[in-house]
């Protein structure tokens, strides 16, 4: 030390995708500042899309080159390993797809500062003004989503968490229709998000107190050396867990999800339900497997209860929902529970978790794309006052618009995990990995894991009910006389639905290539 601060070494090559996204976001801010209003949209859209696709290309290049570093980049702050790259790829595809939807007109408010229903609002709308800030905001959020699961120390992770969340808080409040609901969602999300971030930070501090470091590798080492279990560590573990589980919407920290998903503009809901979930599950894996992997005997019973409760709450509460977006939110909670089953599967044949890791990565990819597709369909079913969310409005949609209803029905079947859809293989992979992990351990864990998987299957059955109910409603009910209109989809929305459908069908029929990809990503495991 000696008071000399060494210049940090930064591996620019490895970090290029991340830097590209953040760079483009900063550029976007400059565009906001200097470009004339009428040009902004025309500049933002290509800038955003190209930076996301460019970052994706860089990820591909990194994967193809295949020389992954053994240690974390940026002085041990960012781990760029197989799983991180896979998640980056998924997040970048998802966000690119969501940007296509975000670009559609009519989702975002003309002037966020105007009081809902006021004359200013009407004027702004009449003037055709729009908030082009959404593009850089989305890019910052995406950058956060990339950094979050790749952070190799708790402080970087906290910063990533905030970089991801803050733009989303804002974006949630920018819906064009039902603005009060949107602003309420934004406020709730912000309050509760800040609350949970505090838990995360406090937990990180506790763990620092125990291990003397915030680096996940360091924490893991400290666990190996200390024989007794420090209460400091246990409290830190619990609080850290609260912060992370809040982000994936696990029970009992799920309450924000339905309200926020409902109120936020639907393209943003799609981004949160897919991108945020993927990133957060990645972060959960990294913290619990890399940092606290040696403690799995301690956190697994708690995780067991959380997973069980999450699946039950998600699938049971979804039954009585009458709002399509809230129903999808509860469905997302249930799926978070299924993913947590995978998180618990830390035992594996090689003692390396690669089987369960690849199962989770596969699940994330297929589930998130189906989710984006489903929300894209929601944006198209409209009443005069905005999107038609109430399920009764969806009655007889199959007769009015058989293609759209058919596509949506297919997405729902994928959520339910019916064979020949990607969702089936996702659930199958995670459940098999969990069972296999339980068997490998050769002790009482086997029974517990089996019990959890059985519970998961039962929850899937309950969930299938409300998915199929919507299908029945769409195809076997008489259409309402003044039913919603089906908006003519823009090129972007068509592209979104097509991509989602192709992946859902394609992976459902030929899962092997994607499974191989996930396996390959998982075989690199996390850098420790």
């Amino acid at each position: 030390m000696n008071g000399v601060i060494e210049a940090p070494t930064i591996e620019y090559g490895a970090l290029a995708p991340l830097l590209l996204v953040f760079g483009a976001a900063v550029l976007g801010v400059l565009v906001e500042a200097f470009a004339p209003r009428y040009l902004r949209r025309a500049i933002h859209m290509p800038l955003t899309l190209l930076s996301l696709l460019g970052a994706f290309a860089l990820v591909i290049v990194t994967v193809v080159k295949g020389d992954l570093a053994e240690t974390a980049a940026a002085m041990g702050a960012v781990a760029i390993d197989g799983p991180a790259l896979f998640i980056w790829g998924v997040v970048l595809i998802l966000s690119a797809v969501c940007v296509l939807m975000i670009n559609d007109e009519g989702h975002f408010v003309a002037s966020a500062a105007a009081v809902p229903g006021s004359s200013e609002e009407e004027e702004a709308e009449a003037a055709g003004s729009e908030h082009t800030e959404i593009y850089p905001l989305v890019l910052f959020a995406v950058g956060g989503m990339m950094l979050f699961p790749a952070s190799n120390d708790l402080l970087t992770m906290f910063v990533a968490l905030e970089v991801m969340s803050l733009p989303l808080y804002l974006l949630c409040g920018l819906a064009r229709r039902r603005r009060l609901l949107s602003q309420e969602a934004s406020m709730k999300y912000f309050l509760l998000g800040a609350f949970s971030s505090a838990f995360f930070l406090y937990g990180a501090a506790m763990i620092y107190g125990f291990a003397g470091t915030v680096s996940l590798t360091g924490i893991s080492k400290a666990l190996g050396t200390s024989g007794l279990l420090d209460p400091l560590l246990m409290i830190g573990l619990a609080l850290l867990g609260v912060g992370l589980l809040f982000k994936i919407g696990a029970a009992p920290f799920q309450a924000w999800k339905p309200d926020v998903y409902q109120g936020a503009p639907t393209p943003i809901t799609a981004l949160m339900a897919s991108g945020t979930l993927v990133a957060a599950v990645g972060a959960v894996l990294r913290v619990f497997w890399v940092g606290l992997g040696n403690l799995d005997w301690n956190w697994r019973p708690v995780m067991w209860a959380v997973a069980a409760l999450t699946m039950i709450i998600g699938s049971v509460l979804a039954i009585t929902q009458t709002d399509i977006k809230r129903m999808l939110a509860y469905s997302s909670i249930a799926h978070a529970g299924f993913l947590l089953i995978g998180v618990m599967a830390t035992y594996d044949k090689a003692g390396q978790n690669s089987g369960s890791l690849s199962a989770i990565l596969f699940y994330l990819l297929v589930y998130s794309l189906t989710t984006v597709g489903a929300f894209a369909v929601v944006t198209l079913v409209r009443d005069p006052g905005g999107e038609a969310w109430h399920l009764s409005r969806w009655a007889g949609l199959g007769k009015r618009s058989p293609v759209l209803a058919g596509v949506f029905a297919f997405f729902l079947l994928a959520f339910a995990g019916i064979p020949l859809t990607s969702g089936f293989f996702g659930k199958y992979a995670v459940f098999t990995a969990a069972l296999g992990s339980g068997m490998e351990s050769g002790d009482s864990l086997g029974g517990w894991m089996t019990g959890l998987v059985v519970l998961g299957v039962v929850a899937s059955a309950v969930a299938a009910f409300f998915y199929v109910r919507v299908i029945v409603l769409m195809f076997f009910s008489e259409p309402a006389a003044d039913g919603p209109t089906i908006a003519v989809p823009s090129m972007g929305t068509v592209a979104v639905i097509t991509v989602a459908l192709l992946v859902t069908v394609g992976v459902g029929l030929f899962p092997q290539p994607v499974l191989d990809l996930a396996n390959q990503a998982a075989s690199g495991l996390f850098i420790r």
Partner: protein
Amino acid sequence: MESPVEIVQHTAGGVIGVSWLMIALPLLGAAILLILGRVTNRWGHLLGVAMSLASFVVAVLAFFELIGLPEAQRRQAVHLWEFIPGMVDMGLLIDPLSISFALLITGVGSLIHIYSIGYMAHDSDRRRFFAYLNLFVAAMLLLVLADNYVGLFIGWEGVGLASYLLIGFWQFKPSAAVAAKKAFVVNRVGDFGLLVGMFIIWTSFGTFAFADLGAQVGTASQGTVTAIGLLLLLGACGKSAQLPLQSWLLDAMEGPTPVSALIHAATMVTAGVYLVVRSGAFFFEPGSPQALAVAIVGAATLLAGAIIGCAKDDIKKGLAGSTMSQIGYMMLGAGLGPAGYAFAIGHLITHGFFKADMFLGAGSVMHGMNDEVDMRKYGGLRKYMPLTFATFMVGYLAIIGFPLLSGYFTKDGIIETAVHEQPVLGWLAVLGAGITGFYMSRMVFMTFFGEKRWAEDAHPHESPKVMTIPLIVLSIGSVFLGGYLILSNRLMVFLGPATGRPSDANLPEFHFASTPGLTTLALVAVGAGFAWMRYGKATVPVVAPRGSFLTTFARRDLYGDALNESLFMRPGQWLTRIAVFFDNRGIDGVVNGLAAGIGGTSGRLRRIQTGFARTYALSILIGAALLTGALLLVGNI
């Protein structure tokens, strides 16, 4: 006896490498016609024909490539993709057996496609008809080309579906809808047998692939193999309309006539024979109980079908009875082991030609007679439809085994082998041939000879060329194919790599003047003569006379339906009622209670979601406290 040669994995390119096109092309045709719908109405039938013909071309090219290979390499497995990881690799098996079927299916299938252009010309749904025909061809090809039981089963079910759709094609007729349902339900019984057989195959051997089963089959007990064999036989009985699952075939004549020709005479009903022959090397060892069962089923069905054929006045039902009977011959041959396989397959191929010929001929007659099917209202048609008459006569002579025509060689081969291997069944087959002589002659005399007994508005005329040309092609096959295949054992040697065959020194010789052969000819002559006396010389009453007890027995399909009704349908209905009762009171009670319980819980839990951020924050706080408490507790244990 030389056993089948090993299956080799196909490596080189060539047509065999792309033999999946055979299945893909008609499937694509069906997809285009069904998805694009009315847009394709104007050219849909042409696309259907083109796809079927293209598939035929691929089959021919693959055939020539196959016979260009040395005999030991004539079983080529083409791997396509991993279907169910660790369980099923989807692939095709191109060997003499499957390629023979492929040629028959695509060849005869294409002719029937062409014929249908004319036959269905006035049907507003012709495009849909061709879509189903293409679907059928694709499914049937998958059935015979798959290199494992799972692929075979998918094709098997696809064939069942296409058959259902086509029998019920004129669904506005209640009788057609009922017949389609009946065919489907009866086939389910057989399918179930096949499925359970496959389950046992998987648990016993851990593989579905034909390539692996050969080596594995020795590891199972005799009882297991017999069980598998009998279950597969049940499946075969369903698809091939063998006793006791024969009842659907006669009703299936409700479909348009080309369907009866394609599916219920030439191809689909032969699937059972294919299944038995394909599984022969594994599960039907000659002399085993299950092989004997196959032969007995065949012999019983060939007699039953022949007897039914004697009493039918509906020309298509008469032909259907004859189909049952002829497939009975094939099953009998297939039950005799490798010695009989070549004759069974040979008869299957020649039968495909002459039966399609006669069915299409019957269709041509109906076309000219305002869709009249009652032979008592025909008579003397030979002058009005000379081409149809000539081609029908060729088919007729072939099926009764007139010397030197196709049926003579193949049927006689089965009979000779049967008399040698299972004398009782063999002589029953001889008797069956005599009955065939009677009922087929009856059909010809009632239709083409005698005086006119037409309805008043009937104006018989020859059919258009698009219908008669396929008839001519088919009748040429009916004349020469049998001799070509059987004399000097061409088919037996060709099939050798797939089914096994006698060594070169022991190849059978064809006897033109053996005792069973001559007896058969004599009995056929007696039968034909008897038919001439009853239906050629004497006047045929327009209204069917009551007839003896035996006639009624045959007219009622040997009481097959009555038997099914009293044995299965009534008890089944009772069982259903009891099950429904228990389902309503017991199971539904539990299920509905459970559902109501979950719904109620959901309704109550919903109230937690108050919408207030403070409540949510409180729940997070409580959750955090619980987590911390639990972790501290676990840590201290």
